[in-house]
Structure formats: C-alpha cells, structure tokens
C-alpha cells in the first residue's frame, strides 16, 4: 500500500476511535491500578478532622489530563469528614481551576472557613514550597478572598507541615522538589496526581515509599472517577484511549508483516 493511503487510513481510524466512544460510550472494562486505589484508600481511611492539603497547580496545556483529576479528588474530599486546605504553589493557572472546581462540586454542606479554605497562589516555586510547610500563616497573610488568616476558624490549629495529615499535589513537573521540600522533612503522607510524562519519576518515589499513591494522567483520572462512581471526562476518554492503543499495536504488527513480506519478495535483502 502507498504511504499516503496508509496515512489516511490511520487518520480516519483515529478520528473514529476518539469520536465514536465520546458519542456512544462503549463501556470497555477498566481495571483500577494499585497506585490509584492507594490514593483513594488514603483519603478514605483518614480519621475525622484530619487536615488534607490539595495543591492545584497546572497550566491550560495540561488541562485535559489534570482537570478531571482535580474534580474527582475534590468531589471525594468533600464527602469525607476532613478539613481541606486548597492552595496553588507553582503555576498561577491553578487559581482558575480551583475556583472553577469549587463552583461545580457538591460540597455536602461544608462551610467555607470552617471545613475548607483556599489560600491562593504563591510565587517562587521552591521558595514557596518550603515557606508553606514551615509556616502557612507567615506565607499567606490572608486567604484568597482577602480575609486575614488569623480570623479563619479552621486555620487556628493548622500552621506547619506537622499539622498536615495528607498532602495531595496536582503538579506537572517539580515532583522532586515536592518530595525534597515538603514530604521528606515531615515524613508526611503525600499523593501525586500528575501528567503521564512525569510518572516514571513518581513511580520511583512510590516504590521507595515516599508517596502513598499516584494518579497517572488521564488514565488515573478515569480510574478515580470509577472509584467514586462519578463518570466525567476521564472515563469518557478512556474508551477512546483503549481503542487508539489497540490501533497502534495493530498497525505496528501490520507494518512488520509488510516489511518481512517485501524483504522476502526482494530476495532477502
């Protein structure tokens, strides 16, 4: 077959593979991987009044992968009897997504200032990280909406990294800084929900026990949506992704068959 013909065939198949499952969900099976389940269990097993930090910090370019995770994690946290501290430590883009998510999720009667708080964005990347765990009150004089932090009831007993029971970050890169500056000094349970590209690195921390669990890109988002039983983008795209992976494997096999066929025809050269 000519290259252009094959290319067109691939393009059409991918278009179909991605768009058909969006219109008609196929409901292909999805196994929840252990790291994802570990994140879920970590949240599920928190005793009442534990403090959870959810760090929402990514740019629009990673929206597809990290926005569904944000929503799923927030949905889950609001069903639990815990105190939630929201913050954005690296990318200012996180502000947009935090506010958008807060608008959408069901808060289950939680009250702002008593059960959850949003501290906003802090510039300085690594400087901000270490300042955040050494003293939140010094770093954030006020919350995102300008209320002095000392007047927020729930923040009275939340000051340093010692007071945090679980730290979940939705970072894109900088995973090593999170481990070095936030997790390691306090031996704090940490979960990382990040883009697939960063997963090889995160897996090493998971194996070393520095991270309790992680979400792997869009796949992790889909698995989490399945766990909390609230389908959204993640599950919607999962069928599409399953099919495109299968198409890829199929075409690689086809390419090799064609290659060997041609080689035999041309006399083993």
């Amino acid at each position, binding site marked *: 077959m000519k*290259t*252009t013909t094959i*290319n067109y065939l691939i393009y059409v198949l991918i278009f179909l593979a991605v768009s058909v499952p969006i219109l008609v969900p196929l409901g292909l099976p999805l196994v929840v991987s252990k790291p994802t389940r570990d994140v879920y269990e970590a949240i599920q097993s928190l005793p009442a009044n534990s403090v959870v930090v959810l760090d929402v910090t990514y740019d629009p370019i990673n929206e597809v992968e990290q926005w569904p995770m944000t929503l799923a994690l927030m949905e889950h946290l609001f069903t639990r009897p815990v105190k939630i501290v929201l913050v954005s430590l690296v990318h200012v883009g996180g502000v947009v997504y935090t506010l958008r998510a807060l608008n959408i999720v069901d808060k289950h009667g939680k009250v702002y200032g008593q059960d959850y708080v949003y501290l906003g964005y802090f510039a300085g990347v690594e400087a901000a990280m270490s300042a955040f765990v050494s003293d939140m009150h010094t770093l954030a004089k006020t919350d995102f909406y300008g209320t002095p932090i000392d007047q927020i009831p729930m923040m009275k007993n939340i000051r340093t990294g010692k007071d945090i029971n679980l730290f979940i970050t939705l970072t894109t890169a900088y995973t090593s800084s999170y481990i070095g500056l936030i997790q390691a000094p306090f031996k704090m349970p940490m979960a990382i929900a990040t883009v697939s*590209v960063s997963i090889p690195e995160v897996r090493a921390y998971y194996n070393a026990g520095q991270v309790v669990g992680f979400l792997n890109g869009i796949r992790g988002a889909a698995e989490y949506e399945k766990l909390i039983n609230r389908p959204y983008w993640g599950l919607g795209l999962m069928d599409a992704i399953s099919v495109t992976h299968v198409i890829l494997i199929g075409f690689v096999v086809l390419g090799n068959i064609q290659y060997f066929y041609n080689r035999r025809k041309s006399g083993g050269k």
Partner: protein
Amino acid sequence: MAMIKEVGVLAIAAFIAIAVIVSIYLVKRGTLKMEIRRIAALDAIDMAIGRATEMGRPVHFTHGTAGGLYAGLAQGEAGAQIVAAMGVLSYVSELCAKFNVQLICTICHAETMPLYTDTIQLGFLKGGRPQLWNSDIVRFISPYQFAFTAGAMATISREKPAANFLVGPLYAESLLLAEVGYNVGAIQISGSAYTHQLPFLVAACDYTLIGEELYAAGVYLSKNPVLLGSIGAQDLTKILVMIFIGAASVLLTMGVNVIKIMGG
C-alpha cells in the same frame, strides 16, 4: 564578604574549563593528536545537500521553539543547543552556497535573527557565493510554539525541501515537523539534547544527533584540528564520571557512602 560554596560542583566546572583550554593548547603545540570517530548524522549532510542539488529543491533548517517567549537564547539548556545548531547551519550554508541550493530557515526566537544572519553570510562567503544572501532566507514566524509549528509545517509542505534539518532545542513540534518533512519526501537530519523529544526524532528522521553529538557537531564539521582538542577534554571528563559512578556504587555496596562523605 565573598565565600565559596558548592565546592564539588565548582571543581567539576573548573576541571572541564581547564581541560578544554589545556587540550586545545596541547593540540596546537603538536603534543596531542586527536582523531575522532565518525558521526553518521554529520557525514550525511553532504549527501543530503547533494540530493537537494540534483533534485533542484531547497534545504530547510530550523532549531525549534524551546523558550521562544522567554529569551530562549539566554537560557542554559536551550541557548546552548541553539549555538550548537549554528555550528551545523554554518556548514549547511557553506555547502548550499557551493552547490547553489536555496536555503530556508524558519525561526521562532526573534533574538536569534542576527545570529542566523551572521552564520549564513559567513557560510555563503566560505562557499564562494556571498551574493546568494537575501532577506527571504531567514523567516521569522512566531514566538509562540504552535503558531511557529503551523507556519513551519506550511512552509515545509509548500516549498517541498529535499533536505530537512531539525537541529537544536526542539519541543513538541519535533514530530509534527518531521512527519510533514517525511511526507514531502525530504531526507531528514535531526539533533537534540532533550530526552523527551529524541524518541520522536530517532523514529521519524533518517539521521539523529543524540545529546552530546549535537554539542560536538560544530567542532566536528569545522574540521579544525585545534578545536578537536576540546572533544578530547569532553572524553576525559566522561571517563572520569564513568569511573566515579562505578567506584562509588561498588564502595557503597561495601558500606562506604562516598556521596555522603562528600557532603551531597
């Protein structure tokens, strides 16, 4: 007052600097003779431009978009790759002038325009046709990554180059440009030090400069025996790093943590 910190790191940097200077000096004096192995991707440049000559089609060159909006030339990793890419462009433009082949460069970093002007003019002069230079060779497209990519894709598909050079700090545009280049039937020579783009370049291009090969390209192509000395300095550093890694992990296995002793 002034105080020195990070002594270990300083020692490495100083070692490389001194090694480069000393080896260049030794080669100049004739004490050291450097011969280096072939780098296939660089040897293929002659063939690629020869093909463009035969087919009467242009040559396309781009260095990618990393740090396009944020002074990419002044950034550590991206800027170094741009300067390394200029070493390749210098040779490419020389050959283009020699064989009277049209050269097209698409760029994303506006601040590199003077660098391109200099490099190409000098290359044309060396190739014996300085009059080939005109303002249509260097085409600034856009400082934004994907606007640049769309423009460069369109340029490649319209001008149908016979040789496509994707050398330098390429980001996600690497595969888009390489695939369009393949579709117009160009011979593709690429190079990058970014490990996140090398997979695509290796898969989609005919020849790829991997990591350090890119940084050595300028020296290799200049065929300047004196500069080859500095490649020797790089080799020496690498061998020492290899020995260090091996020795340190063997010592660690025996219970001596070298990294900890050094204060890392």
